[in-house]
């Protein structure tokens, strides 16, 4: 998706020079070949540093929460759904935003890149179908579909649902055979098996809260884990406290998560906490026919009541 870079620069320079926005939130090239860094361009000159590629793993909607002023923002399909959620939840106003939409062909899984490389990575290039990884003494062309982040494999909206300008032609949406195969695997486990599975999943969590802090939904002024009066959760490495954090966070995100994958991409320990949020997505889809953030008119799933809402799971 490197080819979007020029267009993003062009649009950003234009809206910054015209005074349409005060700043543009995008990405700049990282210091590591497989990373891109969230970046705020305040001038047309600074906008020259903007890039876009398969290493742009953070969700920039996370950075607009409660901001004032006019902001240009680069969003993929999933991010755009988070923008919708943000607007519906009054975290930002639509007229504060100039939305630069990216028709997305998916992000590269960081670990998959590191594994595929035959040494340390100096650069990663992304033409939408092929990802070229280079380092000292090696150059490897990888088919993008083989190294996609797992959320990009089950993506239901690669094209932005809301935008002021698109940086390229819309891309075809994916045809997914079974979107929730991973969740179903967990659902079929016995409760003991599931307990062990979740324990193992979270065994390396250090409570750094990178998943929470990378998440655009986690904007509470004080997160429940940080409350001290009363203190709901212990702060140490007790496994019940660790689990409480992850489960409650998933519940708080129910009906709001777009599966952008920023949480897993941010986790330094490689924890797959999307098992939890994806269960809430599946339930919303199956029980309420609800997909998050598809348009500005739709109220959040847990913000509305219908007399015929399914209730067989309430015992």
């Amino acid at each position, binding site marked *: 998706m490197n080819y979007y870079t020029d267009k993003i620069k062009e649009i950003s320079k234009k809206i910054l020079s015209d005074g349409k926005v005060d700043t543009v939130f995008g990405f700049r090239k*990282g*210091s*590591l070949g497989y*990373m*891109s*860094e*969230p*970046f*705020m361009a305040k001038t047309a000159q600074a906008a020259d540093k903007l890039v876009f590629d398969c290493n742009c*793993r*953070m969700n920039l909607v*996370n*950075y607009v929460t409660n901001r004032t002023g006019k902001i240009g923002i680069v969003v993929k399909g999933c991010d755009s759904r988070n923008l919708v959620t943000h607007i519906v939840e009054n975290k930002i106003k639509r007229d504060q935003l100039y939305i630069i939409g990216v028709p997305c062909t998916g992000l590269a899984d960081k670990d998959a890149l590191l594994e595929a490389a035959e040494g*340390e990575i100096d650069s990663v290039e992304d033409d939408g179908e092929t990802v070229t990884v280079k380092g000292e003494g090696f150059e490897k062309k990888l088919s993008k579909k083989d190294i996609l982040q797992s959320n990009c494999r089950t993506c239901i909206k690669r094209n932005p649902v809301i935008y002021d300008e698109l940086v390229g032609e819309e891309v075809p949406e994916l045809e997914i055979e079974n979107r929730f195969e991973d969740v179903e695997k967990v659902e079929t486990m016995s409760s003991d098996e599931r307990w062990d599975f979740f324990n193992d999943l979270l065994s*390396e969590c*250090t*409570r*750094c*809260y*990178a998943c*929470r*802090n*990378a998440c655009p939904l986690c904007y509470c002024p*004080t997160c429940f884990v*940080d409350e*001290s009066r009363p203190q709901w959760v*212990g*702060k*140490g*490495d*007790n496994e019940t406290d660790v689990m409480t954090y992850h489960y409650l966070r998933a519940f708080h995100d129910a009906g709001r998560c777009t599966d952008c994958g920023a949480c897993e*991409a*941010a*986790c*330094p*320990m*490689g924890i797959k906490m999307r098992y939890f949020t994806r269960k809430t997505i599946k339930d919303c889809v199956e029980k309420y026919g609800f997909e998050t953030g598809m348009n500005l008119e739709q109220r959040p799933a847990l913000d509305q009541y219908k007399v015929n809402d399914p209730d067989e799971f309430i015992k």
Partner: protein
Amino acid sequence: MKMISIKKSDWADAMKKVQESYALAGPVKDKGGHTFRELEKEEVPDLDYKETKMSPKEVVMPKTEVMFTYTLDTKKEGHHILEEVPFDKTPRAAVGIRPYDAKAIEILKKNFDTEDYKDPYFLNKYENLTLVGLAENNPLKVNFSTSCGTGPFDESCLDIILAESGDEYIGKVLTEKGEKFAAAAGFAEGDSGIESKIEELKKAAESKIKSSVSFDKIKKMTVLDLYEAPFWEEVGFACINCGTCTYACPTCWCFDIQDEAKGAEGVRTRNWDTCMSEVYSVHTTGHDPRHEDWQRTRNRFMHKLKYYLDKYEDGIMCVGCGRCVNQCPVNIDIRKVCQQMNDYEPSK
């Protein structure tokens, strides 16, 4: 100084032997790579590793450490009185620790062992610990340890240094603690050529490090000049204020003390803390001097690269291991920030 050598094929036996008198910590393969942790009996430190995500800091400063226990049950003797947790006096050794990670333990010591206060929790562990280092022949690209006053072959903070050489590990015994460990492991005395061989490997390894930081000019700037520098908001923009860098860092020493009770029985624990979090600096009044995200990012770099530098006059609070660079979810790079600080020219 005694030279030692041990065949790789004899390594496991030597470690099992040494475990008769030492408890070991070391690198072992876990899911998702190597980790440095306390080992079970019969577990062998795996010296065939590149890096450990978490540093060996845990050996002297556990993530969560019980300091006291207490009971609120008035029927029990000593209720409402904090009971010290007895210290385990078994000699311990961190085997396979990287030389610059050992240097980091010395940096931690500056905080926990001062004239005014000697922290028993840290010092008990520290004094009881033998550091058996493994030099790094092929440092990663993010490694900039040589510019932080240490390096892949730094002997200054180790009791024994080992280096991989073909089918064996060669090394030097550097201290008395090291001698005891070498005897307990039954390391064979090596020939006199080992010293020059290690010197050769050291030169080769150091020459592979291309990455560096400079902080010579930071020292000359005033704290306020740097604090008020215009670049902090940009540096901190991407930062999501998670604790990844502080927890991965071998020199970040901040902690938080918590009482946790179940029924009438409780413990007082000490946990790693992170200055990236708002709860770290918020006052009981509700005022937070570092309320903005970027102010917390600024604080971490100012502490590591300026306050520490001024206070201890012994370089920066960083050993150049590169863990934070590799693990930061948004790719904030301490090398770039240090450069930016060092290059800054305050307007007069």
